[in-house]
């Protein structure tokens, strides 16, 4: 008996039933971010969509500059601008249907506004009169999430619940490149894949988490490569190409809706402004890097296509500009008014029913406010002004 024959006799069974649980190949992203604008494919892009995206991008840009201006006037406590990332913000909003849910991060007020939320309501958190300025259920927009990545499991739970109820609802959750390092990112993606929940995870890789560049954040080939580790497809897209982002997100939404489970989308983009108005970006990056991205501006990319197709004449341009200016003027005007504040709200929503302690404390505050009012000669101190 030869050694080989012997081995044949005792060749152990492989671990019973071993196999890869799913084929990794289709889960891996392409090597290059998906692009439409500036390629052949752009020619086939729907004209209406292009015009719609253009209008929204111009509005979005104007919204960003207006909000930043409001911080300088002391009308917003802080504003994390999405300038340069408008294609992502707009596409996220447009990819969703009315019944779908958006889970924005703190930088994504623009996505909420593009979804139809009143800009003033979207800015309530950042103005500081309350934590959330709208009813999430009415708009199907979760509160802007400040603790990074914590909103991702919420999106999974909501989408899962909707699916259990038999409702046709998709949740799209936004997170930054920095946020992907948090444990909640990992747990959310894993739950979503195991539950096959109808969720789209949308990472805006804008190159920085405040001052920390991507290279200090991850060593992965791309953030989209994380998807395979959860058994979901990962997609890479040029985040400044509104048509491409819109297409990729729409496809992911469709997939989710059809029972295909979650998708991880990484949009490669760039944060053109500082982290917030309070940040000084010159401490950690070169102007040259910022400049290099100017030619890849999301508004510019669409305008080039529209121009090439002869769809962007001066009339169109000024109509779009006027629309954006009107939005900005309205925002400016309304943000210049002091918000109505009622300190007694502090106690109103802690519990469904106030505890006896809170009732005591509310009574104390009421008495204080009355005393204040009296000593003011009844003029009443507005809290907004007191800031």
């Amino acid at each position, binding site marked *: 008996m030869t050694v080989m024959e012997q081995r044949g006799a005792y060749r152990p069974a492989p671990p019973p039933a071993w196999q890869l649980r799913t084929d990794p190949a289709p889960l891996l992203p392409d090597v290059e971010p998906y692009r439409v604008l500036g390629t052949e494919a752009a020619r086939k892009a729907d004209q209406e969509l292009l015009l719609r995206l253009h209008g929204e991008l111009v509005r979005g840009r104007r919204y960003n500059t207006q909000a930043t201006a409001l911080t300088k006037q002391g009308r917003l406590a802080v504003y994390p601008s999405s300038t340069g990332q408008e294609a992502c913000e707009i596409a996220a909003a447009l990819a969703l249907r009315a019944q779908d849910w958006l889970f924005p991060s703190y930088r994504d007020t623009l996505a909420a506004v593009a979804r139809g939320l009143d800009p003033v309501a979207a800015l309530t958190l950042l103005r500081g009169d309350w934590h959330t300025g709208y009813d999430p259920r009415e708009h199907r927009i979760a509160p802007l999430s400040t603790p990074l990545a*914590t909103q991702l499991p919420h999106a999974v739970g909501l989408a899962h619940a909707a699916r259990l109820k038999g409702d046709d609802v998709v949740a799209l959750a936004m997170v930054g490149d920095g946020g992907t390092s948090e444990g909640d990112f990992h747990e959310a993606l894993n739950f979503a894949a195991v539950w096959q929940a109808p969720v789209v995870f949308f990472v805006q890789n804008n190159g920085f988490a405040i001052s920390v560049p991507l290279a200090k954040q991850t060593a992965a080939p791309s953030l989209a490569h994380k998807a395979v580790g959860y058994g979901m497809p990962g997609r890479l897209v040029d985040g400044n190409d509104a048509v491409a982002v819109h297409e990729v997100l729409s496809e992911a939404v469709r997939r989710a809706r059809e029972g295909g489970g979650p998708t991880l989308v990484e949009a490669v983009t760039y944060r053109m402004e500082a982290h917030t108005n309070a940040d000084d970006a010159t401490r950690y990056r070169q102007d040259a890097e910022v400049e290099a991205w100017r030619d890849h501006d999301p508004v510019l990319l669409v305008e080039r296509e529209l121009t090439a197709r002869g769809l962007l004449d001066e009339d169109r341009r000024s109509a779009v500009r006027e629309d954006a200016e009107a939005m900005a003027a309205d925002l400016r005007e309304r943000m210049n008014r002091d918000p109505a504040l009622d300190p007694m709200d502090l106690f109103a929503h802690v519990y469904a029913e106030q505890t006896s302690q809170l009732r005591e404390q509310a009574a104390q505050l009421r008495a204080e406010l009355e005393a204040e009012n009296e000593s003011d000669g009844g003029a009443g101190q507005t809290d907004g002004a007191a800031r």
Partner: protein
Amino acid sequence: MTTVAVKPATMGQALGRALRDAMADDPSVHVLGEDVGTLGGVFRVTDGLAEEFGDDRCTDTPLAEAGILGAAVGMAMYGLRPVVEMQFDAFAYPAFEQLISHVSRMRNRTRGGMPMPITIRVPYGGGIGGVEHHSDSSEAYYMATPGLHVVTPATVADAYGLLRASIASDDPVVFLEPKRLYWSKADWNPDAPSAVEPIGKAVVRRAGRSATLLTYGPSVPVCLEAAEAARAEGWDLEVVDLRSLVPFDDETVTASVRRTGRAVVVHESGGFGGPGGEIAARVSERCFHHLEAPVLRVAGLDIPYPPPMLERHHLPGVDRILDAVARLQWEAES
């Protein structure tokens, strides 16, 4: 008149029954956690639920507590009423950010638009010979977090009633289950379980005149035992079971201490920074002129929870309670 089929049940069984009845009554109640489905939980509290209601209503999750609680937040956002099981107290810590930054604040953040009717069941406390990380008493963390309710039963009937009330609550409840009472038995009628009282009411478990023992959860039986033993010393101790740490039932507590003039707070959780500080402080504020002695505390030692072989030195027992009672300045009365 129907005869009531009272038979002995354990606290674990009563909790399981509460979950079952809540799920049967309300299709929006969903149970999720590690091993809660097929296995029925490591303490078997969820035994049978997956079978009766299906995997979608009682779900074995991946092993990630922040993910579990975070998913529950999303489910609550969509109108479900999730009941989350944390396998042991110390394994609730990974979910701390979700609990503090979201669960406790979501209602307030959204001006009531998004309530969080989530019940978080946490087996807590020691005395079961558990190795490290299996015997923590973490109630101080939860008490210090506005927006949460903190509830803990000490009897079989309360286990049922308080859990039903917690699940029915439109606010998040950290429901602390005293591990070592899971197997405690009492006569109880599972076919006509006790009426569900609202949470937030303490109860006088034993009336007495000499001093009040203020306690909850696993320390309630210990205090009742101490009260019996105290009779030999001539003390007639009142025992108040708080049942709910948040909301705190100042009325019942204050009435008792004003009556007796003396109080000892008893709990397993560490003393320093523990629940007893709050309780003693508020009793002192409210009953100062009725107090014959400072409100004393008998608590776990201010150490990490000990290994099983040494835990008896940590846990507040009858002797330490009686020692504290003895220090209530009785001479001042005479």
